[in-house]
């Protein structure tokens, strides 16, 4: 075998702390290595051309590139090999940037380690085999999980491009958090006026199938061919016939249900349509509050319903859909502010969250858009906003900035003045973070034109005094303690990941961070892709996002899906497991441990049970290979022999530079 080694300087990224020419020189001594060199940027056009020329000139069978993470450029170098006529799997990368130069500053020791990584790569390459990909069909339908603004945008874009879309929404109506919001910053547009038509488009679009009150139960398969099970939760109303007339809501005797859509600041009936613009506009029964379902007595709605669509016997239903791609746009939840005991949240009626305040200001909210104190219905004259409740606070496990609270607080302060012209607003803030287009101007307008008092410092305590509240905090700019007497306190609660996000991530087989937000494949270059092919992300499921970013990401994810669907056939990755049937004893432990369901049981001609890998389902994780006691199942490109060769190379005597 003839091997070429290319050591990349990565500008000064690697070369500053690794002696690249020395590594290249030393690599000449490794077995089968016939050519070595070091280049400034191996990934650049001249760098790739150098590889191609060396392959031709020195008749190389395989190439080792010592540079950055294979995640960054493995595909790049594989293409270069292919252009030179080699099989693309005859490439090994030694990660001497992330694994060496970025983590250590001792040049001598870095050089030794870089050489060791190169020798491991050479040892593996000596055991590598050419691999060939298979082709398979693509199902050109897409699943969109979550019907918030990001999901709606993604669904509409895909549907307009002519692809079938299945949208699954957990709640009774699509619209997400944006549907609850009164006005949007910085333009002070009516939120539901700009979202409403898009929601209607979703329900009207011939290419979109909408499952509301539904959740994804299971996702199986692989890019291009996912099998999705959707659980349609029982609504106790036959939605095929329900016209959304609302007669049932008027007559329902049970009126004390917590109104989830109004963030719990009002009550609703047990059979309910959450808001006038709801899509689908269908009623659903809350089984916990329904007298008929709880006690077996009532049934008024069933008597009154003109289309006879009430069905107390309804059960959850599982529907199966075949799709080729998945877009997750599951959004976020609001931080549970009640952990801030010192703010009395949940205890004092007039200490409310920002989203509750949003409902109070909303014309379709429980107060018809009049700001009234929840305790006594009086108009508050002094409103205090407390920022960073559950943001930038390691003490409650939320060290990150939720991003949009500065802006919505400024908006709410401005709107407060519009609603109640003789009111005063105070904002306790830590920093004002308003980097978007027109955002800084907007927060300045709140301060300069609307006279909102901004106090820089955290609030230490809120306590009642008579029917008002004392908000005690610090003003770090003035260097004093301040106390503000308020009629109403609004806590700007931060965003956290949706409650079921980790469970859903496991179903989709994508990674998530320690806060439960989904992880993009690359924070800069693949912001809406995941490491699982065919699964894309949009909106706040990735981390707190405002509306423009969410919409942008919805379109970006849709564009990725369209790129995928523009091909009729996809190539499978040949780096998958393969069974040596003569060794397999048919214990099927591999199948039991496979997290992807990629191994099936077959019977050979002699009637013995054997394992077989479904190539397109296998993700190449290798769990089966370590489970198999016989070593009968081997991961192509990561076989036992290849890994043993690496270990043996690493155990060789150290080379001094």
């Amino acid at each position, binding site marked *: 075998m003839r091997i070429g080694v290319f050591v990349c300087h990565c500008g000064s990224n690697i070369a500053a702390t690794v002696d690249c020419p020395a590594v290249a020189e030393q690599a000449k001594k490794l077995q089968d290595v016939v050519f070595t060199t070091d280049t400034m940027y191996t990934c650049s056009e001249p760098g790739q051309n150098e590889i191609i020329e060396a392959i031709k000139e020195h008749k190389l069978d395989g190439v080792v590139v010592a540079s950055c993470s294979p995640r960054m450029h493995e595909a790049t170098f594989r293409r270069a090999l292919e252009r030179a006529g080699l099989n693309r799997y005859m490439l090994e990368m030694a990660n001497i940037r992330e694994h060496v130069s970025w983590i250590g500053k001792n040049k001598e020791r870095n050089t030794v380690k870089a050489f060791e990584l190169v020798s491991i790569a050479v040892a593996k390459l000596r055991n590598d085999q050419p691999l060939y990909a298979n082709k398979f069909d693509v199902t050109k339908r897409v699943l969109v999980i979550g019907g918030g603004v990001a999901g709606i945008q993604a669904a509409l874009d895909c549907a307009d491009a002519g692809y079938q879309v299945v949208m699954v929404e957990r709640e009774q109506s699509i619209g997400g958090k944006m549907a609850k919001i009164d006005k949007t910053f910085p333009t002070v547009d009516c939120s539901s006026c700009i979202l409403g038509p898009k929601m209607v488009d979703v329900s009207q679009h011939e290419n979109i199938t909408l499952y509301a009150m539904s959740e994804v139960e299971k996702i199986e398969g692989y890019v291009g061919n996912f099998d999705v099970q959707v659980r349609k939760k029982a609504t106790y109303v036959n939605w095929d016939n329900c016209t959304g007339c609302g007669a049932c809501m008027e007559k329902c005797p049970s009126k004390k249900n917590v109104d989830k859509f109004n963030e719990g600041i009002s009550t609703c009936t047990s059979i309910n349509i959450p808001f006038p613009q709801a899509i689908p506009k269908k009623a659903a029964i809350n089984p916990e509050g329904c007298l008929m379902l709880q006690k077996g007595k009532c049934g008024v709605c069933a008597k009154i319903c003109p289309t006879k669509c009430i069905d107390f016997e309804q059960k959850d239903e599982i529907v199966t859909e075949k799709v080729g791609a998945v877009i997750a746009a599951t959004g976020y939840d609001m931080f549970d502010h009640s952990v801030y005991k010192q703010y009395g949240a949940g205890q004092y009626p007039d200490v409310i969250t920002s989203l509750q305040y949003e409902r109070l200001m909303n014309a379709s909210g429980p107060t018809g858009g009049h700001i009234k104190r929840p305790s006594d219905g009086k108009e508050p004259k002094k409103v205090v906003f407390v920022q960073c409740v559950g943001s930038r606070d390691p003490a409650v496990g939320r060290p990150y900035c939720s991003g949009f609270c500065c802006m919505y607080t400024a908006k709410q302060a401005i709107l407060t003045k519009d609603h109640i012209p003789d009111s005063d607003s105070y904002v306790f803030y830590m920093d004002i973070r308003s980097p978007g287009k027109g955002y800084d101007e907007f927060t300045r307008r709140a301060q300069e034109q609307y006279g909102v008092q901004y106090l820089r410092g955290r609030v230490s305590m809120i306590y009642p005094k008579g029917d008002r509240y004392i908000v005690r905090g610090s003003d770090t700019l003035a260097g004093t303690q301040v106390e503000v007497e308020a009629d109403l306190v609004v806590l700007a609660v931060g965003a956290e990941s949706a409650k079921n996000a980790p469970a859903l991530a496991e179903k989709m087989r994508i990674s998530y961070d320690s806060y439960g937000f989904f992880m993009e494949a690359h924070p800069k270059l693949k912001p809406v892709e995941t490491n699982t092919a065919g699964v894309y992300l949009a909106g706040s499921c990735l981390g707190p996002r405002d509306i423009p970013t969410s919409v942008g990401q919805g379109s970006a994810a849709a564009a990725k899906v369209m790129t995928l669907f523009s091909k009729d056939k996809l190539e499978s990755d040949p780096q998958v497991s393969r069974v040596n049937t003569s060794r397999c004893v048919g*214990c099927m432990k591999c199948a*039991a441990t496979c997290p992807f369901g990629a191994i099936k049981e077959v019977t050979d001609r002699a*009637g013995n049970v054997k394992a077989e890998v479904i190539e397109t389902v296998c993700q190449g994780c290798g769990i089966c290979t370590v*489970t198999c*006691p*016989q070593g009968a199942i081997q991961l192509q490109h990561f076989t036992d022999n290849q890994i043993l060769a690496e270990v043996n190379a690493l155990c060789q005597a150290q080379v001094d530079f």
Partner: protein
Amino acid sequence: MQALAELKEQIRQALPDLDVVIGWQQGFDALHTRPLFIRSEEDIDKLVVNEFCVVNPASYLRELRGGKKVGLVLKGCDSRSVIELLQEDLLKEEDLTIFGFGCNGILNHTKLQARFGELGFIQSIENDGANVTVVVGDNKETVPFTELCADKCLTCVYPNTLQCSHFVGEESTKKPESEKNKALEEFEKLSLEERFAFWQDQMRRCIRCYACRNACPMCVCKDHCIANSREPKWLSEEVDVQNNFMFQLIHVMHLTGRCVECGECERACPMDIPIMLLRRKMAGVIRDVFAYNAGTNAEDTPPLMCFKVEEPTIEERH
């Protein structure tokens, strides 16, 4: 065993539907039994069940896989290996007929030998359950059973055959002498260096005859044991401390969460290497980490045979 006649009758009735029934027969002397493969009526009379029935009949099952109808006479500990094999889908329940009984413990030949010299000199041996009376020459000595029984019997909590088709006689009410194996307890008091030195010393004696592997009912790789494999080649043929230790550790890792601690490996070892220590240690780890006892319930899935996002006994997130 009083119920022996009853057991024989049960086997007699079941035999027409079975290819073979595995039990024990008298060996070359009174102190040994050897496996008995009952294929016809006359074989049944050779069956014995006593405190010398040390061999685990389940060890023969891997050769009998594939549609053969097999009957087994099993002690409590032996039955755990069958249950483990059932859990791992290596056996089919409908192919098995298990004859169970209550076991009061078995005797350990090494301990007998250490106490009374060559076993050939023992003239008679009697066991009343609590004490063993041994006659060697003119000497007659009575020793508590617990001093001569197999180590596994001292900590045994499953004296009765688990999950059997037929049960004969009365259930054993034997209670474990101690919760944890004494040798293991002593071993765990050693420092890591001392433990390593101990094993280095033991592994010097290992001759890599693979008797431990061959006797193990859970070793199912058959001809493809990685100890002999050339492709990939994990172990050198050289019999030295390193390779011996490597082989034993591989064996233990293959038994992680599967070993039912039947003790066949150690019993089969011609060099008397205490390899059960390694297995008991690992079984303890599995109990601590997964709250799981191998081979006690055929419905269970062994912890290392399934993929779970979160283990109920391991707190990963806070």
